[in-house]
């Protein structure tokens, strides 16, 4: 005999059912949830922390930019005001206020995301999301209680966490990660930064500006080694002006804390050992995909050897139908805006649309001062691929706007195809580079040639004139102002 229908309906009545459940509310997750809602889906988002926004908003992009700007103001007050004709009493860093302001910026945006969830009628669950099955997600709340929700589609957007080297004892007091570096109680006297990649460069430069002596130890032979070599070289020049030391091509062998002193030992490429002593050590050697506690196995999924969730290139679907993954937890650059694109992409894929992401044209940005931004191929990549290219550069020191502001460090470099003149890569270091790179992305999405951009009017005086001039240089070495 059949079971009475009521038995089914009763059990289902207790389980909330959604079209899309997003695990993680970082820039990938919340964008994905909003786009899904826009497409008419019934959407839920699960967030482990009490606040929305993930790494980017809480312990990444946003707070670091808040501190970068605060430190920049301080640095200008100390070093530039006098030249600008502003005489003030010697400024002092109030670390407590600086951190408080940063916290205000973050909570402002936290509230913004919560508002967006409400506005789009997205149900928010606070608790650790884990797979219960391929179609259900268990949300374990802080008080230990749990709830299971079901979904036709599940999007993994759990992001990443800082990588920790096994032989470096991170105590989060003296040997710290980027998370702690964003809530320091004092300005370090000597900050040792292990890893001079994007995060190390950004946070290292914050404290260099606040007056810390900063020593960068980097395994590769330049700062921000994945970017075009010119960028790393120029950035190092800029940061060196603040009195930073660089130990490039150095391999860290140990780190130890003794009281308030941290000792880091490293070897150069010849095997010669150096010992650096400081009061804080910031470890920024990268980030790892974060799937801890997600219970991938219950959904029939496994992470690869680097902790990533494997996805199909064309749909971002995992090996289990109906489960997708986006952002830092999948292959590709760990960038908030890449995660956002993927968030939109997956929502549209679920809706049966055929969106596109041009991964080659996702810009990379480093929020140091001067900023670094790039898109497309680096000179090294073009050489390796055997593509004949032309290079056109324009220095900020020849730019009216930069001279007027006193931000003359920097260069805009355009790489174009030797025959077609198509722009293949743009690399900018200088004031406002992060904003300027958008022009390069638009141009390259439309496969513009260097001359196309060179023939477009750029307002004067602006930093973006550097782009026009570099394109003129790339076209036929005919920049006007150099």
């Amino acid at each position, binding site marked *: 005999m059949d079971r009475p229908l009521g038995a089914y309906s009763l059990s289902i009545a207790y389980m909330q059912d959604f079209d899309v459940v997003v695990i993680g509310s970082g820039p990938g997750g919340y964008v994905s949830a909003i786009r899904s809602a826009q497409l008419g889906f019934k959407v839920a988002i699960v967030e482990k922390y009490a606040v929305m926004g993930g790494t980017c908003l809480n312990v990444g992009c946003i707070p670091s930019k808040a501190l970068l700007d605060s430190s920049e103001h301080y640095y200008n007050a100390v070093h530039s005001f006098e030249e600008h004709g502003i005489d003030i009493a010697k400024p002092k860093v109030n670390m407590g206020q600086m951190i408080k302001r940063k916290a205000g910026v973050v909570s402002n945006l936290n509230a913004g995301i919560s508002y967006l969830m409400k506005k789009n009628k997205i149900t928010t669950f606070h608790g650790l999301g884990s797979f219960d099955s391929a179609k259900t997600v268990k949300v374990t709340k802080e008080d230990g209680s749990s709830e299971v929700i079901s979904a036709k589609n599940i999007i993994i957007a759990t992001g990443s966490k800082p990588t920790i080297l096994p032989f470096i004892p991170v105590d989060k007091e003296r040997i710290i990660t980027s998370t702690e570096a964003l809530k320091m109680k004092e300005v370090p006297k000597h900050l040792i930064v292990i890893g001079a990649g994007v995060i190390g460069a950004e946070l290292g430069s914050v404290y260099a500006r606040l007056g810390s002596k900063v020593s960068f130890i980097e395994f590769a032979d330049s700062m921000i080694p994945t970017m075009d070599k010119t960028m790393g070289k120029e950035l190092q020049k800029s940061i060196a002006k603040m009195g930073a030391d660089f130990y490039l091509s150095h391999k860290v062998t140990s780190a130890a804390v003794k009281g308030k002193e941290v000792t880091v030992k490293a070897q150069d490429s010849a095997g010669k050992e150096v010992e650096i002593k400081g009061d804080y050590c910031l470890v920024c050697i990268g980030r790892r995909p974060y799937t801890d506690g997600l219970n991938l196995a219950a959904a029939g999924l496994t992470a690869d050897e680097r902790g990533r969730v494997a996805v199909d290139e064309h749909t971002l679907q995992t090996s289990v139908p109906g489960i997708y993954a986006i952002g830092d937890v999948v292959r590709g650059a760990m960038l908030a805006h890449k995660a956002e694109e993927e968030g939109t992409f997956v929502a549209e894929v679920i809706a049966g649309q055929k969106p*596109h992401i041009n991964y080659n044209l996702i810009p990379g940005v480093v929020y140091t001062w001067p900023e670094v931004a790039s898109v497309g191929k680096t000179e090294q990549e073009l050489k390796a691929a055997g593509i004949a290219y032309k290079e056109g550069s324009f220095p900020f020191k020849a730019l009216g706007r930069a001279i007027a502001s006193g931000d003359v460090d920097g260069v805009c470099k355009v790489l174009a195809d030797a025959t077609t003149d198509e722009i293949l890569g743009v690399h900018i270091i200088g004031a406002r580079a992060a904003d300027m790179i958008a022009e390069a992305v638009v141009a390259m999405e439309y*496969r513009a040639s260097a001359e196309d951009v060179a023939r477009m009017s750029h307002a004067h005086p602006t930093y973006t004139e550097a782009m026009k001039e570099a394109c003129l240089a790339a076209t036929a070495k005919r920049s006007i102002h150099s």
Partner: protein
Amino acid sequence: MAIEMKVPAVGESITEVTVATWNKKEGDHVKLDEVLCELESDKATFELPAEAEGVLHIVAKEGDVLPIGAIICTIEAGGATASVKVADAAPAAAVAAPVAAPAPAPAPVAAPAAGPTSVLEVKVPAVGESITEVTVSVWNKKTGDSVSLDEVLCELESDKATFELPAESAGVLEIVAESGTVVPIGGILARITVGGSVAAAAPAPAAAPSAPAAPASTGDATYAAGHPSPAAAKILDEKGISAASVAGSGVGGRITKEDAVSAVKPASAPAPAASAPVAAASSERTRREKMSSLRKTVARRLVAVKNETAMLTTFNEVDMKPVMDLRGKYKDKFKEKHGVGLGFMSFFTKAVCVALKEYPSVNAKIDGDEIVFHDYCDISIAVSAPKGLVVPVIRSAENLSLAGIESEVVRLAGKARENKLSLEEMSGGTFTITNGGVFGSMLSTPIINAPQVAILGMHNIVERPVVVDGQIVIRPIMYLALSYDHRIIDGRESVSFLVRLKQLLEDPARLLLDI
């Protein structure tokens, strides 16, 4: 010398024909005016007579779809040998290599500089007497492309039809009138540089003289041609259209969002495998057949009418007893005198003509911002022919007697069944009558026969209980349907038209007395 037989221009809106049957075989000796084959267009079937006496060489096989002007066959006059003809029929490549090299080497590439060049102007052909200008809708080729003889260069659009323009010669194309340009008849669309070097004609400013040995000039027009913008790429993917099949209107041939939005999936090429209706796999429970060009046109037009008009249908019923009584009484005498049977069609046609005179908007058509009223009634009659639905026209039906109408119906229906209707006999109707009743239809909503604005649907006659003078009586009843274009016909006219028909048919004496 061989004579090339091409597809003749058979009507202004006809752009291609299908080779239906060959009456002659390859190598047959044919006489002047002997019928070689039958060609089928979406409107009619016609025969192709030989333009000369000689030996036939078939170029297009049965089932091939050919544009107007394409070569169907060649006739070798004077009985020369086969080998000569093969050379004649060889593709245009030979033209480019006038050097008398017998070997079929890739001559045009190898020795381009030597050949004499001439520039041929591609002009807008005269496509119909009322057409004075055309719009270039799409270029299939780019400036600098090598084109071969009869390759379709572009699509031209007039207010009446779209047609393709084949290359009159092989050579290198230089576009003069870009897509979207309006060009008068005789205006220059492009130039074809015949013979000579490909590189010299290409617009590339650099390296022209240095080394024509470089690879073909396909890519250097602009490297970004055909590159879709981010939004365009998504739209094209969702439509399942490859970017390669879309002509970009953006800078340098880039595909803009608008291009993608308006892109239409190209008609898929005929299945490469045998197109014979033999089922591909006997285990499958479906069967595929290619749509005939008549079917395709009918399909396209019907959908167009549904999309482009404000069509709706009004109904009424007619007591057929009076007409049936009259017919029963006189049908033998009628047949005797006129040699044609007295059917219902003549009554309906006659009544329609009277009603159309009283409600001229039903007998009109829309032309741009104007309404064209017809002071005559050319009544199209929908006839089911073996190859599908055709609508021959009874000319000036308002001037014909019932017998005249009946004999026209018989004549046209007979020709329709034999597929012998001419284009002329099927064009220019002002109103259509369709009779679904012959198949047993009780009620239907016919689709207007554009550019007409109304169509009358007749149905089967069924004995039904009706109330006459307070009594339930049994009467032969036919439901009538009038589908009409509400853009120019309002409910008052359409309903009154149908009521008037009912009045005339239920009291046929009114037809005689014109009241």
